[in-house]
């Protein structure tokens, strides 16, 4: 089963995000109120770990598990889409306390509200798909 490794990675991700409480509406509120270092610490250490790993991959030409070189796609250049889209996502993130990963994690954990957030998120994605060509990018 070639998907087992991905299920395992997701399993670790789900446990870590739950046990660190990054999936918690309360923790997101506390973060945006600057009343705890916890969430900022998580994001900073995750980025530092990723940064060191990505630098090692690039400098040592690390291969992936099949032996092919690891290529990391750069993000497309732009400004409007990132600042406008980012701000809209931030509004939703602080409102219901979930980003896309935690929506699924909370749903798995049995929080019914996350199912409603997921429906909204699918609808929002669909509306973006309809309006894409009319929006500044």
């Amino acid at each position, binding site marked *: 089963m070639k998907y087992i490794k991905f299920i395992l990675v997701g399993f670790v991700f789900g446990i870590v995000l739950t046990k660190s*409480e990054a999936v918690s509406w309360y923790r997101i509120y506390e973060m945006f109120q600057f009343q705890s270092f916890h969430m900022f610490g998580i994001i900073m250490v995750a980025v530092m770990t990723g940064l060191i790993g990505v630098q090692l991959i690039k400098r040592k030409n690390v291969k992936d598990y099949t032996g092919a070189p690891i290529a990391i796609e750069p993000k497309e250049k732009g400004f409007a889409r990132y600042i406008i889209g980012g701000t809209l996502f931030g509004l939703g993130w602080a409102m219901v306390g979930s980003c896309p990963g935690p929506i699924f994690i909370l749903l798995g954990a049995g929080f019914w509200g996350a199912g409603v957030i997921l429906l909204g998120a699918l609808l929002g994605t669909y509306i973006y798909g309809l309006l894409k060509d009319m929006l500044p990018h």
Partner: protein
Amino acid sequence: MEVIYGTWPWYISGFLIGMVMLALLYFGKAFGMSSNLRTLCSIAGAGRFADFFRFDWKAQRWNLAVVFGAMLGGFVAVHFLSNGSGVNLNPITVEQLATMHIEAPEGKLAPDSLMGFEALKNPKTFIILVAGGLLIGFGTRYAGGCTSGHAISGLSNLQLPSLIAVIGFFIGGLIMSHFLLPLIFR
């Protein structure tokens, strides 16, 4: 075993999240959760109405496997790795929440008044959840990523677009948390 059952410290959690991203790179993929929303729209047949959803979603099945694993992880963590001692907020935060009629966590990850089954019967709660979801779905696809794709993957690779997106996340989050939530939960 408080080490396992209590709140995991930020330095352990952050390290493990970074390793999750690197593990996916090692498996030849890129860490990003919000693209699954597009995949799910395509599976549901949205390609009939918009080109954006006409793509080879089968190539994204690995990411749905990550989502499935994450759901299992959430289930196991809440039901078998928690003892109700977590979510110890700053006492000032708890006081502020009380002024918005939101109960203290007492070990819960989310307020029952927002995420519980009973709360969904309240039309106001239902609208809040759908509206939040709409902003998340529309915003992440417009920005081309969320906390995983931009904040973790993008910043790790020193991508300027990701930095702009993350600044946007915080502009939106601060406006909501400081100005709009007190109005919504008045």
